[in-house]
Structures are given as structure tokens and as C-alpha cells.
């Protein structure tokens, strides 16, 4: 299948709000005060727009894809490894950004990127972003690493205490490393790997596997294992680094010389949405600088606009390098591997997400 | 009371098979109003099955069942005016004694006050008014049995079915209960259909007895008829103890044609020296075993041709004319009996009692 033949074409004006909107999102993206009374950017929205929010949180992009296909959600907060699949499956509606006043203030380097825009059509609004950093325990890992080598070639030094993100998309991290260290593989884009390139990444990850203590996909787990010393080096998010009690585990999180993968999630609207007007209202609401600041700070990522930084707490934007284009340059934002090579090659077929999924299972073994 | 005067229960060619087993085999039976009718037979002979057919727990494969003038063949148990005292009592464990007894009235919609009064009355009849508030588990076996009886009679059924109700009681208690049962039946005038494998119990209680074998009635009659005039070796053997002379033994010992039964108590044992009474048949032999049974001795004798006889030497008071000392093991004796005490047996059923 090629791209969105079932996509409806963007609407050009909005109507009455429908009174309800259902949202599928990562935990922490749609908080209505029920987790923590202090954390609430939903109630105001409901009052303002009359759109009652029901939210469902998901744990992995695959789970989200499955849920999204049920057609029961108006809005999906999708990471890059999901967005293109949504578009291809015809699940995502084209979004008319003109109808979202807050769109304008969003950083340009997040706009019209390949994970939110296909054939010049916009499929969603960029949310916060962040990088998958390298974190290490400064006591145990010496000298201080500056390269991903620490989790690849040097991983055996910390056998059983290395961690990595638990998802097929982590293959891209290996690709980023290979791009720098094995230029002859010809990797141009870590999400655009032909079979040979994928095999090289898989080999690298398989050898890393021997040193991995555990993979992580939730905060709590990786935070705890760094604090207890079960893990001393591996990928992390800035927010986790911030949460770790330095007294327990002196850690440092860096953006290594090779650059890093990262994410910039996209608020999408379902092509089957029965409440498109509320959906648009939500997209605008969540891009509101104050709300965006609140949400991205809670989750632990950079907000999507300079304006938002005015609302964020002191130092947040600095810590998370918000608006730092040079920094963002070094990030390979998550994208969905598809057969049509994203790097523009036409002479080979690239491996797709399914291939990656299989490869990931094999790597873990 | 004869059955034909006013038949209360009538079975016409009723048959019931379980797989290959003919539990009840083309049975005809008429039981009269107010009769105390017993069914006697070994285990597996179909006694319970007949009872379950009458109560309606089982459907006959063929044949007809009437209660009074009504054909009940197709009616459910709750549509038949019959109640049952189950072998294991089947008291409702979650109800107390009074509630158990009142149950039949309750399901008939009798008001609370009335059913309580009538249940108490029934309990008084079985002399259990003092345990009305107890749960069945707090009763002894004999008490439970009486509660089951009260529960069954309180609805004044036309027929009461009793399936070995005394089987689980010990001997002393069983004897007491037998007396009570008989009294209650007399008082209420209900037809009792009683199942037992205890021949003495059947003899003691019944107006008439049907002896069962493999789903069929092999003999039907008053206790006296059954005991004194068994028509087959099977009945002679099953009801009481009998010496059975099959045709060969009869020829040898009695010098007569046919098979005969002789009750042990009809045999007189005398020392070989004594002369036989006039008209007596005699046989000499040796005592192989003399078992004390309280009311007398059971004496086993081996005759000269190897035939074994059992004689009952009843111990009697000193005033009785023949209160003699019993002979003992090894003694040679002459057994004698009157030809009139020999019961001729039908030839058809000359086989052993079978315990299936």
C-alpha cells in the first residue's frame, strides 16, 4: 500500500464542538488531576470547550497502533515510530494547521518533518521533544565516556550493568553509532536501513546483548536500577537523569559525539473521528504555550515553543535544551522505517518496522 | 386388610432397565389402602427402584402406575400424593428440625402459624418436640430417622414409602423404632410401603410381604405364608434359615420325590439311644458345631451320607417340658421331624440367593 489514499483531505473550517473527545496517549500526556491534583491541564479545557475528555494511555507504540485501529479514538499522541504507520494505514486525518492558532509559535525545526508530514500534507502538531541520551555512573564508568562506544565496544567492561531502551526502534541507536564508525556501510539515515545495514546493526546489538543487564521502557525501572547500581551505563532520558538521587548514584547524562536518536511526538487526529471539532480544539489547547510547558515539564522533555519556556519553571528549558537548534540538529528524531527508503534511495528496498520488530526479538533472543 | 378391597397402589407390567440391568421386570403389584406392605430382597434386587418408580423419581420404561384411581405414570414427584422416608434421611441440613418437618406444608402454601402447629404435632407424635430448634447435624441417628418420619407424615400423604429406614441404626435402636413405626401406621391409617433386606423386620412389621429377586416378585403373602410355606428354595433360603433338600438329597435322605425345605427349629435332636417318636422321619449324624446364640444353640449336624443339617435347639425355661441340656460337638445324635413340617418347594427357582 502506498500513502494515505483513505485520508480525507483537511477540513477548512471548524464547526460546533461535539461535547466529547477521546484521546490515546503516552502516560503523562493527558493529565486531569487524577494522578496528582496539582497536575491538570484537562479540566480547564473541558470547561472552556465543553469537550469532555476520555483518555487511554498506552505502553508501546505497537499497542497504540492496535488501539488506534479500533477507530475509537479522536486524537492520538504518536511517536515517530508510529506516525507513518498511522498515515499509511489511513488512520490519520490530514490536519489543517491554519485552524490551530497556537501552531504558529512552534519551533520551525519541528515543523514539516518526515515523521509528521507526508507529501507536504500535515498529519499532526509537534509536541515536546527530547533525546535518548547516554547516562553513566560517574563512579563506575571511568574515564567519562563521550561516545556511544561505552554501550557497544566497551559494554563488556560493565557486563550485566548495561541498559538499553526496550523497543525495536532502539535499532536506530545502533545505526547512529554505525553511521559514525562504519561509514562504508553507507548509512545515511538511521531509520532507512537496507537489509545489509540492518544486519550490521543487529550484529552490533547482539554483541551488546551479552552485556545488557536489562532493557527498560518505563521511568521507574531505569531510575531505580541506576540508583541501586544494577545498571551503570546505558540510554536514558534527561528527565530520568534529573530524577536520580545523586547521593545514591552520581550520574551524568550526555549527548555523545555521534549524536543520538530522540523523539518528537505528534498530536494526530483519527480519520474516523466523530468529534473532529473537539479534536482540533484539543490540538490547539495542548499547543498553548502554558499548557505545553506544563505537559512537557511533567513528562520531562523540551516544550515545542519559546513562548512555552516563559511558562516553564526556572531552568527547565535550559536543562532540556529547548529551542537549541544546534542541539536538535544532532538528534535523529524517531521515524517509522518503511519499505520506501526514507533517505531517498530507490535502488534498494529498505527494511520496514515489521522487519525491525522481528530483528528486535532476535536480538533479545 | 386385603389389597383388592380398595387398592391404593397399582402397578401394571412396570418395567425399568438401567442399561443391561433389568432393575424392575414387568412387575404387577397391588397394595391395599392402609396396608403395611414390605418388599424384601437382597441387595440389587430392585427394591429401591420400585419405590422410586412409585414416588416418581424414576420413569418406568413401560407399564402403568396408579395411586388410588389416578394414573400417575407420567406425573412428577411433586404431583403425587406420596411421601418418602429416605434411607439416609435426606434431612435439609440448613433447616432446623421444625422447619424440616414443616417443609412440605410450606411448599403447599400453608400459613406460617398453622404449619408450625402441625409440624409440632407431628414431632410430638415421634416424641421429638424437645429438639424442634436443633439442626439435623445435632441429632443422633435415631432422632434423625424420626424427624424424617415426621416430615413425611405431616402432609398426610395417602402413601408413605420407606426405604430401609432402619438400616443405619444399631440393633437395639432398630427394635425400638420398629415398634414405633407400627404404632404410627396404625394411628394414621396410611398405606406404608416398606423396603428392607432384614427378613425379621419384614416378618415383624408387615401385613404382607413381597420377596424380590432380580426385579421380579418371587413370592407374595403374609409373613406366615412366606416363612412357613416358601414356594421356592430362593425364598426358603432368604427368609430365615432353612435346610433345603434338593431332589437328589430328598431321594437319599427323605426317600421322597421333589425338593423340600425344613426349618431348623422343626428338628428334634435326641441321643441315638432314644426311640424316635411315632410317625417321625429320622436321620442319624454327628454334631460338627454347636453355636451358642443366647436364646439357644444353632447345631450343625453331618448326616451319614455327608448331608449337612442345621437344627435350632431353643433354650427354654426350667418349667418347659423339654428343657434339656444341649448336646455338644462330636456327639452322635438322631435328628427327627414330622413329615408335615417339610415344605415342598417349586422346582423352577432352585438356585441360590444372589447378591448382585
Amino acid at each position: 500500500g502506498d500513502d494515505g489514499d483513505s485520508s480525507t483531505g483537511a477540513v477548512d473550517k471548524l464547526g460546533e464542538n461535539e461535547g466529547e473527545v477521546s484521546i490515546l496517549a503516552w502516560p503523562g500526556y493527558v493529565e486531569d488531576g487524577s494522578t496528582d491534583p496539582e497536575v491538570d491541564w484537562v479540566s480547564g479545557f473541558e470547561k472552556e470547550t465543553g469537550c469532555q475528555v476520555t483518555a487511554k494511555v498506552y505502553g508501546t507504540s505497537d499497542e497504540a497502533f492496535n488501539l488506534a485501529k479500533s477507530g475509537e479514538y479522536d486524537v492520538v499522541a504518536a511517536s515517530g515510530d508510529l506516525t507513518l504507520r498511522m498515515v499509511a494505514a489511513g488512520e490519520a486525518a490530514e490536519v489543517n494547521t491554519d485552524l490551530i492558532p497556537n501552531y504558529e509559535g512552534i519551533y520551525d525545526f519541528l515543523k514539516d518533518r518526515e515523521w509528521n508530514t507526508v507529501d507536504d500534507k500535515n498529519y499532526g502538531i509537534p509536541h515536546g521533544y527530547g533525546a535518548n541520551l547516554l547516562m553513566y555512573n560517574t563512579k563506575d564508568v571511568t574515564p567519562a565516556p563521550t561516545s556511544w562506544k561505552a554501550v557497544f565496544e566497551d559494554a563488556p567492561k560493565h557486563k550485566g550493568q548495561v541498559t538499553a531502551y526496550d523497543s525495536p526502534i532502539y535499532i536506530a541507536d545502533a545505526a547512529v553509532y554505525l553511521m559514525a564508525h562504519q561509514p562504508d556501510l553507507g548509512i545515511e539515515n538511521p531509520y532507512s536501513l537496507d537489509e545489509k545495514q540492518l544486519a550490521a546493526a543487529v550484529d552490533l546489538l547482539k554483541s551488546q546483548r551479552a552485556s545488557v543487564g536489562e532493557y527498560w521502557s518505563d521511568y521507574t525501572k531505569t531510575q531505580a536500577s541506576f540508583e541501586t547500581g544494577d545498571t551503570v551505563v546505558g540510554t536514558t532520558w534527561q528527565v530520568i537523569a534529573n530524577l536520580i538521587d545523586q547521593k545514591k548514584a552520581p550520574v551524568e547524562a550526555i549527548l555523545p559525539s555521534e549524536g543520538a536518536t530522540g523523539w518528537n511526538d505528534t498530536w494526530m487526529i483519527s480519520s474516523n473521528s466523530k468529534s473532529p471539532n473537539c479534536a482540533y480544539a484539543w490540538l490547539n489547547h495542548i499547543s498553548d504555550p502554558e499548557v505545553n510547558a506544563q505537559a512537557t515539564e511533567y513528562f520531562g522533555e523540551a516544550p515545542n515553543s519559546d513562548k512555552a519556556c516563559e511558562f516553564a519553571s526556572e531552568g527547565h528549558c535550559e536543562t532540556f535544551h529547548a529551542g537549541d537548534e544546534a542541539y536538535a540538529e544532532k538528534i535523529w528524531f524517531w521515524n517509522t522505517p518503511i519499505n520506501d527508503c526514507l533517505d531517498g534511495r530507490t535502488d534498494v528496498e529498505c527494511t520496514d518496522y515489521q522487519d525491525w520488530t522481528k530483528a528486535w526479538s532476535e536480538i533479545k533472543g | 386388610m386385603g389389597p383388592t378391597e380398595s387398592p391404593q397402589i397399582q402397578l401394571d407390567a412396570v418395567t425399568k432397565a438401567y442399561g443391561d440391568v433389568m432393575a424392575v421386570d414387568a412387575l404387577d403389584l397391588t397394595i391395599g389402602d392402609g396396608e403395611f406392605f414390605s418388599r424384601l430382597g437382597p441387595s440389587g434386587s430392585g427394591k429401591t427402584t420400585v419405590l422410586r418408580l412409585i414416588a416418581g423419581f424414576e420413569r418406568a420404561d413401560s407399564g402403568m402406575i396408579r395411586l388410588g384411581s389416578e394414573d400417575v405414570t407420567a406425573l412428577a414427584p411433586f404431583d403425587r400424593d406420596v411421601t418418602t422416608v429416605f434411607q439416609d434421611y435426606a434431612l435439609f441440613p440448613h433447616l432446623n428440625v421444625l422447619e424440616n418437618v414443616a417443609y412440605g406444608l410450606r411448599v403447599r402454601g400453608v400459613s406460617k402459624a398453622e404449619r408450625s402447629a402441625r409440624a409440632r404435632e407431628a414431632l410430638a407424635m415421634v416424641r421429638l418436640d424437645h429438639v424442634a430448634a436443633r439442626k439435623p447435624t445435632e441429632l443422633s441417628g435415631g432422632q434423625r430417622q424420626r424427624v424424617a418420619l415426621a416430615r413425611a407424615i405431616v402432609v398426610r400423604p395417602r402413601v408413605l414409602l420407606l426405604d430401609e429406614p432402619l438400616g443405619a441404626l444399631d440393633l437395639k435402636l432398630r427394635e425400638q423404632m420398629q415398634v414405633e413405626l407400627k404404632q404410627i401406621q396404625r394411628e394414621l391409617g396410611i398405606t406404608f410401603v416398606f423396603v428392607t433386606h432384614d427378613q425379621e423386620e419384614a416378618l415383624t412389621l408387615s401385613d404382607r410381604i413381597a420377596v424380590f429377586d432380580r426385579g421380579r416378585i418371587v413370592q407374595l403373602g403374609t409373613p406366615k405364608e412366606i416363612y412357613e410355606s416358601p414356594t421356592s428354595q430362593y425364598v426358603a433360603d432368604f427368609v430365615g434359615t432353612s435346610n433345603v433338600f434338593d431332589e437328589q438329597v430328598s431321594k437319599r435322605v427323605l426317600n421322597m420325590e421333589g425338593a423340600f425345605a425344613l426349618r431348623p427349629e422343626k428338628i428334634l435332636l435326641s441321643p441315638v439311644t432314644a426311640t424316635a417318636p411315632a410317625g417321625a422321619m429320622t436321620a442319624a449324624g454327628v454334631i460338627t458345631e454347636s453355636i451358642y446364640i443366647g436364646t439357644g444353640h444353632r447345631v450343625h449336624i453331618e448326616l451319614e451320607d455327608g448331608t449337612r443339617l442345621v437344627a435350632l435347639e431353643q433354650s427354654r425355661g426350667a418349667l418347659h417340658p423339654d428343657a434339656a441340656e444341649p448336646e455338644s460337638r462330636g456327639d452322635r445324635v438322631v435328628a427327627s421331624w414330622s413329615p408335615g413340617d417339610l415344605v415342598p418347594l417349586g422346582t423352577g427357582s432352585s438356585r441360590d440367593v444372589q447378591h448382585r
Partner: protein
Amino acid sequence: MSSISSTLSRRPGIRLGLLLAAPLTWLVLVYVVALAALLVTAFWTIDSFTNELERTFTLDNVREITGEALYRTVTLRTIGVALLVTLIDCAIALPVGFYMAKIASRRSRHLLVIAFLMPLWASYLVKALAWRSLLSNGGLLDWAGGLVGLGTPGFGFTAIVLTQAYIWLPYVVLPVYAAYERVPDSLLDAAGDLGARPALTFRTVVLPLVVPGLVAGSIFSFSLTMGDYITVNIVGGANQMLGNLVFINSGSNLPLAAAIALIPIVVIMIYLALVRRTGALENL
């Protein structure tokens, strides 16, 4: 009402039909149909990009799961964990069940049953997390182990086995206890009476009689372990089991997930078939 009763009483077939109608419809419509649909899916495929199901029969998925070393490895690991968990739980349940049923006083028996029932109400997730905390570096085991010179096994295969054995233990202890309860004391007396010492009595009389209870319990420990993936994520270190493979594929490739799911289904069916003869299914 009474006439309905009367009619019904003559029609055991209708009575049975009325009783069975709702539950059977439920089980068949809800479960059998769903399961069959899933199994059929295993023989389909999906469009790799749109993730649309392509309903054409193919053995590709089955070939893949039977052909590739990955699935063999993970299957063996999963069965290994399930068997070990079952063995551990059975080994614990046998003496504990015996103590509860045959030695403890009636009163403490009640208390013990309650003690084994209560943990069933503590969230399974919380228990798994508690084990993560127990097993972690600097955790209670590490700390206590340090005192006696033993460490924590850390996260991984052993941790999975320990945690699963812990979580499913009450599911094995309770039926085994119930099985012991059903062994009449007089049989134990009889064996001793005939000269068997307690150990021999246990081996020759008690054990054969509690096997159905043991098997009933093992169905739980075995099949619940076979399918679990959450515990694995929490304490399994870098390991994965069949459940993880089904889970990771369930979003992106349902036919493959369905095909992988066939493995535990087949294994459990074989297990059930094997234990059916012990009469355990009636003793559940």
C-alpha cells in the same frame, strides 16, 4: 409455575437444554469463536505498511515459528521456566499441604488457609515489583545475603523463576492441601498398621492420592507462567518469553502474534491431555 415444573419434570432434555443454553452460548460465542478467529488469523498475513489484514491462506507464519531458532530458544526457555516454577511450587506444596491438612489443629488449619489465600489479593503487579525490590542490587536479598555470604541472583532467568514461583504458590498449595484433606486418616492408619513407616506410607499411599490435587495446582503454575510477560519485564533482565513475543507482535503483526500464541496453546493442550488421565480436571 407448577404446571411448568410438571412439564419440565417430564422432559430432562429440555431441562438440560435450559441449564446449558446460557453458559454454552457464552463460552462458544465469546470464547471459542474468538479463539478460532485468532487461530485462523495465524494463517493470514498483513500488509507490511498499512497493517491491513490480508485474508489469504499462508503457512508463512507457522513456517517462521517452527523454522527459526529464535522461537525454539524462547519456547524452550519458557517451558523451562514454567516447569521449574511448577516443580518448586509442588516441592513446597507437598510438605506444607501435608502439614496443614494432617498435622495442624483444626483451628490453625483455618488460619493457615486464610494465610495462603490472602496474598491472592495483593496485586500481582505489586508482588512482582516487590520482588524486583527484593532482588535488586542493595535490596533486601542482597543485604541479607551479604550477612550470610550469598548475594542476590540479580535480574534474569533465576529471578523470573523465583518471582513466578512466589506469585503462583498459593494456587498450588491450596489444591494440594484440599487433596490431602480428602485422604482419609484411616488410610494412613492402615498403612502404618500393615508395617509401613511414615516415609513409605507417604510414598506408597499418600502421594499417589494427592497427585490429582498436585496436577490441578500445576495446571495453574504451569499455564500462568507460560503466558506471563509482565513479570518478565519487571525482573527478567534482558530475557524474553513467549508472552513477550506475542505481545510485541500483537500490535504490529497480529497474524504472527497469533501464530506464536499457537505455541503455548499447543503446549498447554498437551499438558491438559496428559493430566486428564490423572483425574485432575475433575478435582480442579
